[in-house]
């Protein structure tokens, strides 16, 4: 019975809140966003990673500006036979030996050209756009599906939970890159045709969808665990005693309590998505050429790795910076709003 769990000797203050947490700013009190923002502002890791992210995102967004007003070249425009003036001399964009021009530091071909004479800077910016778009859509899909499945499985338990959890098991037991390649190659050929919904094979939505679905398990698992514990909390019983339906309990009582977990998981999932997108595109199962993305740029550069290493190094460095910053930012946010590591624990339990 309930009173057995009541700690004896609760001090007369009537608030049995442990003193240890008194100094820690209550994440709920400050609001999750404000608490996260404060933590990011006050650590160099947070500031640095946020700055990097803002730079990458802003420059990717500004891709058309650079292309139209500075480089005067599109991401797919071929300059194989063009010549530009470099240090007063006319120079081939791609030499007769097939070696593309290196970084010029000028408006045109700022970072040099690739083997097809395309402006690397322009392609890098557009590639960032594509990669970020895909990652954003994929992360959204992952968070939505993961929350949905985690909530339903954790709340209803029983056979519903079994079906969902075994489904996630199957998803997880398949090597994630192989699954991505298989789905990516299959859909790149014919696109997705579900009768009403038709997505052409070269659409960016296809890799986003694949990555989004495959990663669902990393959100659904921890959220299922957290929901399992939330549903036993007294406020759920209190809501039920007030005549709340299951729907209302899920929506109004449990979902708002998942905010912390989602905010902790989101940057990690986003970082994972970015690198996963790059991996799939690198292997030819993600963004389809000639469309640029960080992954396809690295893959393109690989052919001329020895003669033009910057083609591989530059997109690789941007990718690494992006993923690193996201992970750093995720850590800062997690420490601010999940100091006791509840979300991390739930993740660990599930693996």
């Amino acid at each position, binding site marked *: 019975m309930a009173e057995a769990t009541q700690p004896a000797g609760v001090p007369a203050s*009537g608030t049995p809140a442990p003193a240890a947490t008194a100094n820690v700013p209550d994440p709920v009190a400050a609001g999750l966003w404000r608490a996260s923002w404060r933590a990011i502002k006050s650590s160099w890791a947070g500031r640095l990673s946020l700055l990097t992210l803002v730079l990458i995102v802003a420059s990717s967004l500004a891709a058309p500006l650079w292309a139209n007003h500075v480089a005067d070249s599109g991401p797919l425009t071929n300059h194989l036979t063009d010549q530009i003036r470099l240090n007063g001399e006319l120079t081939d964009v791609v030499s007769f030996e097939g070696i593309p021009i290196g970084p010029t530091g000028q408006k045109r071909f700022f970072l040099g050209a690739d083997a097809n004479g395309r402006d690397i800077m322009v392609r890098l910016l557009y590639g960032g756009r594509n990669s970020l778009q895909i990652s954003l859509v994929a992360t959204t899909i992952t968070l939505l599906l993961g929350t949905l499945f985690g909530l339903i499985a954790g709340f209803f338990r029983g056979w519903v939970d079994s079906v969902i959890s075994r489904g996630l098991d199957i998803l997880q037991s398949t090597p994630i890159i192989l699954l991505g390649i298989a789905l990516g190659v299959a859909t790149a050929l014919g696109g997705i045709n579900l009768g009403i919904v038709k997505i052409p094979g070269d659409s960016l939505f296809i890799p986003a969808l694949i990555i989004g679905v495959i990663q669902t398990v990393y959100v659904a698992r921890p959220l299922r665990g957290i929901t399992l514990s939330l549903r036993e909390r007294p406020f759920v019983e209190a809501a039920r005693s007030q005549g709340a339906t299951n729907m209302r309990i899920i929506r109004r009582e449990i979902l708002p309590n998942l905010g912390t977990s989602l905010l902790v998981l989101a940057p990690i999932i986003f970082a994972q998505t970015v690198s996963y997108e790059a991996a799939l595109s690198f292997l030819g199962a993600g963004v389809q050429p000639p469309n640029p993305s960080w992954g396809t740029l690295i893959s393109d550069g690989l052919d001329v790795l020895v003669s033009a290493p910057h083609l591989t190094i530059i997109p690789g460095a941007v990718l690494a910076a992006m993923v690193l910053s996201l992970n750093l930012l995720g850590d800062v946010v997690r420490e601010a709003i999940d100091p006791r590591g509840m979300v991390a624990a739930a993740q660990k339990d599930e693996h």
Partner: protein
Amino acid sequence: MTAPTAPTPAGAPDAASDLLLDIDGLGVAFPSERGPIHAVRDVRLTLRRGEVLAVVGESGSGKSVTALTLLGLTRGRGTAITGKAEFDGIDLIGASDSQLRRIRGKRIAMVFQDPMSSLNPVLRIGHQIAEQIRAHEGVGKAEARKRTIDALTEVGIPRAAERVDAYPHEFSGGMRQRVMIAMALVCGPELLIADEPTTALDVTVQAQILDLILRLRDERGMSVMLVTHDLGVVAETADQVAVMYGGRIVEQAPCDELFADPRHPYSWGLIGSIPPLTGAKPEYLPTIAGTPPSPLALPAGCPFRARCPHEFEQCAEVPPLAETAGAPGHLDRCWLPIDEKRIRRAGADGRIGLLHDAEATTEESA
């Protein structure tokens, strides 16, 4: 079971019409790996409009389960619920989930033991209260908010118009319990079930909360079922008292009656273990020897048998809950003849107690 007339509180005029809650033969058994756990057995209770019924007992006696069962909160997962529980003519045991949902919060409201954890930490309190009004009465947001503020004012929360937008952690324990009560009362329930509403609070706040519940009872004429293990709380608030032990009601009486003339040895033990306020202080506070029986292996016969110093052969059979003498509405489950009870319960110092030889025990241990 014998069926004596329903206990009538002194001075209640029209017995049949104002009967709000009628529980009879209620049993609740939870499944477990080692067989069913009979948490509640053969409980019979009645509650009139405007009456305060206290259900007393130690942990595991089934009092909370009884309360939760009325709202259907023990349903599911193989729980076996038997017997009858009628609320204003509505069968609470057989009611569908959706029927029950319409009653919960609207006609029967519940206040839980721990206000710290019964409020959702991430939602504003006003939101949590308004949500309920809107769920039950389909009123608009503005109207719900206005009523929420009124309800908070009514339970004595200062500056309710501002506090309505605060989060639970911004309230003290007593204030949170007031919020819980406001939440329970906002839809004007006819029955308030308070499951140890003051256990988590300190004594002064406890008194305030009890006063609040009683004041609202008086103003609204609602009935209160107060689940508690605190006899002090019972004495202050209850009209009727039911003492539970091992899932059964062992004694039921009007409040004054119970304290003046307790009939069941378990009640003697409970009353005897209250520290005396006057006279010589005993060196050791009397206790009831032994531990509560495991609900998995309840002794056959009287549930209190194993701990009762007055046990005799007949106790192997479950005594009926019956009126033993004179006083109408005073029922108990004990085979001892009434005269014998009155002799045996008097302690050495003249106080009511379970053991004759309380002094002998203290000497031994000293």
